[in-house]
Structure formats: C-alpha cells, structure tokens
C-alpha cells in the first residue's frame, strides 16, 4: 500500500533520513521503532509532504506522491497524527472533528457516530474546548480527527507520549479495534512493548537508516533493538 524507496530527507543541509526503504501492507499495522533522533518523525513528515524529500520516492497505492503538498496527500487518503497532536485548542471537540472531515464532508454523521463509538469520552466532551482536555483525551481527539477524513492509511507519531501507562494500554486497545476494522496503520513509537503487540511487522531506525526489518516476533528476541537504543550494532 505504501512503498518508500531510498528516501533521503532533512532540514537545510542536514540529512536526518538517509536512504530508508520501507513497505506497509494493506490492512496491517507496521511499527517504526528507534530512539529519539533516529529520524522517525522526519520520515513521517516526508511521507505526508510536510518535509520535501531530497532523494528517493514515496508511492501510495501505486501512485507517486512526489511534489504533493501536505493537504493533497491527506486528500489522497493518508492521515498523519503528529506527536504534537496539532489540535485547534480554542475550538470545541466537535468543531475539531468537523475540520477533520474538511476534505471529505460527505457521510459526516455516520463517521462522527463511528468515532464516538470508538472514543465515547469524546462524545461526552463534544462541547468542550480542545485545549481544556486532558493529555489522553487530546490524543484520542487527534486520532479521531484524523479518522474523520476517512483515511486508508493512518500514520501515528508517538501516540503514547505523555500518557500514563494505563492510558497507553487503553489507547492501544482502541488502535487494535481500528486495525481489525481494516485501517492500515504505520506507527512510530518509543514504547516498544505496546507497539510490537499491535504490529505484525516492524522496522528499527537508527541515525536515519533502517537497521532491522522483519516480523515483530523476530525482533523481540533479537539484539537489534537493544543495539539501536543503547549503541553499537
């Protein structure tokens, strides 16, 4: 579904992502793991057009995304939930969700109901301003807003950041429901355990390069993860 080939991207003269190859299969959840600064966020931002790649290609459902701007990539069916969540703090929960459906206004009510079924907490707080929600609720709103655009591929950047362990577990239960509903997920995480439980396949990034790719089961027992986080290869 998503195919990234020899992707180089960064800021100014500094390459943060250096020749990454990555594949996401339809209906699967895939994890990108690695320590801070490994290039996970830049990789995601390059895929969705927020950072212009220097070299390499990104194809989604067989079509090249080269030169597409972020809003065009979103309209094509890829949603990106940034680590910063990027909500509209002064707007209500409902208004945030409305804007999530900006590119696809048809079938709004059905999707809103589906999103509220998945996150009942948001239904209770629909009139509350997004900026006044707790961290966990804001994360759920960010995911819900992304789902309002009816994406076929959902990119999640560090969804567990700033959440208590209990909330992380709850969040991942919801993501599992989404996966079972057929949403393809690409996930960047530092919380290795939760990510590997959800995802069938995983990539480990270090210094902008892929140092491991394979099934989550293989990764659990291997030394690659340990090496990526603690140095050495």
């Amino acid at each position, binding site marked *: 579904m998503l195919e990234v080939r020899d992707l180089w991207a960064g800021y100014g003269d500094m390459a943060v992502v250096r020749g990454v190859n990555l594949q996401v299969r339809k209906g699967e959840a895939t994890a990108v793991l690695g320590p801070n600064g490994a290039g996970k966020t830049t990789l995601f931002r390059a895929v969705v057009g927020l950072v212009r790649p220097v070299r390499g290609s990104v194809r989604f459902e067989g079509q090249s995304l080269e030169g597409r701007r972020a809003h065009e990539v979103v309209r094509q069916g890829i949603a990106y939930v940034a680590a910063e969540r*990027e*909500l509209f703090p002064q707007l209500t929960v409902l208004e945030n969700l409305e804007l999530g459906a900006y590119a696809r206004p048809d079938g709004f009510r059905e999707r809103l109901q589906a999103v509220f079924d998945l996150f009942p907490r948001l239904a209770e707080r629909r009139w509350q301003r997004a900026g006044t929600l707790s961290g966990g609720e804001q994360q759920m709103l960010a995911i819900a807003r992304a789902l309002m*655009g009816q994406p076929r591929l959902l990119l999640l950047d560090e969804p567990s950041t700033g959440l208590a362990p209990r909330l992380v577990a709850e969040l991942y239960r919801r993501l599992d429901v989404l996966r079972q509903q057929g949403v393809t997920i690409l996930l960047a995480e530092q919380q290795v355990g939760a990510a590997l439980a959800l995802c069938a396949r995983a990539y480990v990034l270090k210094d902008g390069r892929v140092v491991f790719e394979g099934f989550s089961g293989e990764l659990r027992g291997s030394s690659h993860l340990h090496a990526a986080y603690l140095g050495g290869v």
Partner: protein
Amino acid sequence: MGVVLDGLVLGLQLALLSVGIVFVYGLGGVLNLAHGQVAVLGGLATALMLQARQHPVLSGVVGVLAAGLAALLLDRSLLQAAYRRRGEERLLLALILTLGASFALDGLFTLRFPNVALSLRLTNPSVEVLGVTVRTASLAVGALSLATFGLLLAFLKGTRLGKAVRCIIQNEAGALLCGVDVEQARTVTLFASGALAGVAALGQGFFSYLGPDMGPEFTILSLIVAVVGGVRSLAGTFLASLLLGVVNAALSYWVGTYLTWIALLAVAVATLLVRPEGLLAYWP
C-alpha cells in the same frame, strides 16, 4: 449621545482597518506597516474614478478591489522574502520591508496625486432619529461597516473556506493535516484584508475626506487597535475598535485632537501592562 454614536461608527471604521492587520499577522506572523497605505490606495482609486465621472457605486467597488489586490500583491512580492525566515527574524524583516513599502507608497501618492482627495458628500448633512440629530454620514458609514462585517462573519462562520481561515490562524500545521489548502485560504484572506481597508477608506471619505498622505495615520491606528484587542483575536479587535472609537470621538469633542493620540497610545500601553495578550486573547 451624538458623540457616542460618532465614536461607535468611528470604531467600526477602525475595526475594518484593523481586521486586516490581524489577518496578516494570524496567517503569516508578520505585521504589515503599509496597511494604511493600502487603504489610501483604495480611496485614491475611488477618487480618481469619480473625477473621471464614473458611477459612484462602481467607483467605490473599484477602489475596494484595488485595495484588495494591492494587499495581495504586497504579500506575494515583498513579503515572500520574510516568509522564508522564521520567528523573530521573519517579524523584523517584514517590519523593515513593509516600512519601506509604506514610505515608497506615501511618496508616490503625495507626488503623483497631491491634489486628489476622496470626499463623498451626502445630500442631507443630518437627519433626526428619535429626537436626536444625527449626521447622515455617520448612519451611512455605520450601515456600510455593519453590512461589511455581516458578510465577513457569514464567510468566517458559515463557509468551509472561512472555517479553514479560522483554523489556520490557530494552527497552520493542524489545518494542513485536515486537508486544508492553506495557500488558497491565504490568497482569499489577504485579498479580504486589503478590501476591508478599502471599505474603511470609503468611510473616511463619507466622514470628512481622505487625502494621499493619510496612510501612516491609518497604520498607526490599526496597530493600536490590534495591540489592545489582541493580534490574533477578531472578537478582541472588534471590541477594542469600538472602545477606542468612542474614546477618540469623546476626546476630540471635549478636549481636542492633540490629546487623542496620546490617550489612544496610553490605552495601548495600559493593555500591554495589564493584559499583554489583548482584551480577548483568542477569537472563538
């Protein structure tokens, strides 16, 4: 009573002028010091059309469109250099660039059109409303401003593009991730910022007259309003405009024009000290 009404109408004028500053700051993080000159350009275009014996309504429309295009052009040419930078650097570069543009436009207006002024005289100078004598110009300008604001509100609250503009001002990255075409929204908004200033210039023409040298005055007034109201807040700008309009009219009436500028600046300084984020920090 008449003074309060004049003040409120003046406030509406200020609001039309200042909304543009708020839009440009909200969308691009820059303060446009040539905003007053954009308004004057619209007024002068109308005056020139009237001199050429064109229909008054057509002349007004052309003036408003000219101001809108001027604002857009300023953004697409001069300010592009500033947009390539971030944060403080962007703000400072844009200040210098737009200051330069304001000098250049002032020079152009006063040299090329020294005797062109916009003065829209209504046939009846005053009418009586509920036993109070009111200037017809105040009523006309009040109605024009309110109608313009009605359109603006309908656009911002009722249209998809308007909602997109509101969310870009709050969080541009968030808007992009919702699939909003930020460039398109920017184009429309920048045009609107200039066109609203053009309407303000027409109002000035009704009130008294608009001359080629009035750009700096307009810019400073709109900056004061934006500071008092909150540079990212439309509702705050509106409230601050009405407040400062009444203060301005009352002081001009009872004390004299020379003190009004000092009083307006004092209100701005007091706001910065007590409520640095402006009266209403964010607009709903």
